[in-house]
């Protein structure tokens, strides 16, 4: 880092300058230079690639161990007192970014589970059946319904599993092409994962770029819908040319069995969350309203019982278990293994506990990299060689986010790791938080559902492998091999293409002087 006396605005931007030297916090010196401060995060990325891409194990617990081993290993390269290194881990973990994301996830998890348990997908099945859609149109219709479902529940993995279980076999019986159908399901999952305010990746993209979640959702609609219109047309056209397996059979019977029109009431729950979040309410408030509407409507319409939402399984010898057994939320159990608390709320929240720990540790490793200087070194190199103007900066953001999401199966973890880089490159050119968050999340959502090792593909494929055991007519030859679906995940490819075009043409670009994103209210 050096200084100069250039006082002309026409001077070459690459001239030497004084940057933030980070005197506000302690520096960490590493044997082998500042690059070694990247050891924990590089070790984690290699671990994540080996675990998720090479061995196809989508286990967040394994990734937690990976980052822990990386953090321990990095300590051995520290010069001098290790205390500063240890304190920096705590400094990273207590950053507002991590806490905000975790709180929002827990709320979103409870809401999503209520919608899933409250029969939202059954309502969509009813709609598909009533509309009488044929085999050629079925992939396009499935794309739309999966997109609506995922926009409601936020989790594309959950949507992949639900739609492969319910829509995939029905589509095959109707004569839809299985590869196209699987691609349409994954495309719908991408749409919702990218747009839903309760999506984990939407939340991470907003909080890492200091933006409000409602504003992020509204501002990214233009990119998502442009890609979706073309993808929808693609499924319509491809559906005419790509034939089915000619199985025959009664698809309607299959659909009717899972059909529940009242489940469509959750379009209201979903609308409440999106509407209140975009209107500028705090995300916790917006999702809380969604939880209230989903719970009350599910109870009133008989979709869920109170015990489905929260249930206590108490042992018979507990002092007040038997006297209070009449309560709808309390069950007395004999088997000690059955003792516990269950229901949609805890199941939904607990789904994010492991991811929460993982994210705390990734942010700690990122902080080590910042304090040790490797982050600044990468940033300096990028600014000098890649992000030389605003177009190249946006292309660099698209490329780096796409690359890390292509190699790490669990896209939320990849998004957290690349978040600081996207933020710094974007802030340098005064791109506002919405634009930065949209570039980050589009690649995260898209690349998480395309490749054979992607988490979304693996989730759907795992559900598909259960189908031969469930239906007599379904043989293993009807399974779609993950590699075959890669070209047919239209929404994913188109979303990446939209952002490359947006970077080149300036479509949707907003600077901080155009509109400042509202910072996510800290908790």
């Amino acid at each position, binding site marked *: 880092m050096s200084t100069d006396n250039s006082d002309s605005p026409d001077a070459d*931007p690459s001239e030497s300058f004084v940057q933030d030297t980070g005197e506000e916090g302690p520096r960490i010196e590493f044997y082998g230079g500042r690059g070694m401060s990247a050891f924990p995060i590089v070790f984690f990325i290699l671990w994540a690639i080996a675990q998720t891409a090479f061995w196809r194990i989508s286990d967040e617990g394994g990734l937690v161990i990976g980052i822990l081993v990386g953090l321990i290993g990095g300590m051995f390269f520290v010069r001098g007192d290790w205390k500063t290194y240890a304190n920096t881990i705590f400094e990273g973990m207590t950053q507002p970014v991590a806490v905000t994301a975790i709180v929002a996830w827990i709320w979103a998890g409870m809401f999503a589970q209520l919608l899933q348990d409250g029969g939202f997908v059954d309502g969509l099945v009813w709609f598909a059946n009533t509309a009488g859609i044929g085999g050629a149109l079925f992939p396009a219709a499935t794309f739309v319904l999966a997109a609506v479902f995922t926009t409601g529940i936020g989790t594309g993995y959950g949507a992949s599993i639900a739609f492969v279980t319910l829509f995939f076999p029905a589509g095959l019986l109707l004569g839809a092409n299985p590869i196209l159908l699987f691609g349409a399901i994954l495309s719908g999952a991408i749409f919702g994962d990218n747009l839903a305010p309760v999506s984990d990746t939407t939340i991470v993209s907003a909080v890492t*770029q200091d933006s409000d979640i409602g504003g992020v959702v509204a501002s990214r609609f233009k990119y998502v819908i442009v890609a979706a219109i073309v993808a929808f047309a693609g499924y319509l056209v491809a559906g005419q040319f790509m034939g089915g397996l000619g199985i025959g059979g009664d698809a309607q019977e299959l659909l009717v069995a899972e059909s529940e029109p009242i489940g469509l009431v959750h379009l209201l729950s979903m609308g409440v969350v999106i509407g209140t979040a975009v209107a500028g309410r705090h995300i916790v408030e917006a999702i809380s309203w969604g939880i209230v509407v989903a719970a009350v409507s599910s109870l009133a319409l008989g979709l869920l019982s109170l015990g489905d939402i929260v249930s206590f399984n108490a042992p018979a010898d507990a002092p007040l278990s038997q006297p209070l057994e009449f309560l709808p939320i309390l069950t007395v159990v004999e088997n000690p293994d059955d003792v516990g608390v269950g229901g949609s709320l805890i199941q939904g929240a607990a789904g994010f506990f492991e991811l929460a720990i993982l994210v705390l540790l990734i942010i700690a490793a990122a902080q080590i990299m910042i304090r040790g200087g490797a982050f600044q070194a990468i940033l300096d190199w990028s600014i000098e060689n890649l992000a030389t103007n*605003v177009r190249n900066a946006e292309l660099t953001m698209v490329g780096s986010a796409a690359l890390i999401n292509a190699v790490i199966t669990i896209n939320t973890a990849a998004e957290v790791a690349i978040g600081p880089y996207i933020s710094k490159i974007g802030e340098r050119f005064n791109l506002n938080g919405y634009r930065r968050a949209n570039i980050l999340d589009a690649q995260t959502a898209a690349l998480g559902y395309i490749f054979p090792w992607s988490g979304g593909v693996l989730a759907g494929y795992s559900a598909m492998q259960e189908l031969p055991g469930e239906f007599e007519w379904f043989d293993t030859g009807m399974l779609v091999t993950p590699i075959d679906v890669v070209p047919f995940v239209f929404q994913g490819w188109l979303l990446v293409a939209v952002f490359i075009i947006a970077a080149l043409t300036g479509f949707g*670009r907003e600077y901080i002087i155009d509109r400042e994103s509202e910072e996510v209210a800290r908790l």
Partner: protein
Amino acid sequence: MSVFTKFLRGWQFRDSSPSLTVGDECSVFVAETNSDGNGHVYIGDTHLLVEGAGPETAEKRVRIEVTEFDETNATGRAEFIEVVGESSYTN
């Protein structure tokens, strides 16, 4: 701004070198600073030299007033007013 209007914001092709008007006040991130106490701000490819923005403002969001602007070269000068915010990630 209504909920519907928020969805319609940004449906446009924005210039890579946005224009500014003398007298405009805005808040922006300072990319880097010189040793003589001036800061460099890039709004897209538009370059402003901000007088009075010393090293303590590097990578911080500051309020500035535009004092000169050349449309042809998309360059100009501005005066530092105050620091109004931090980067998403502060060293």
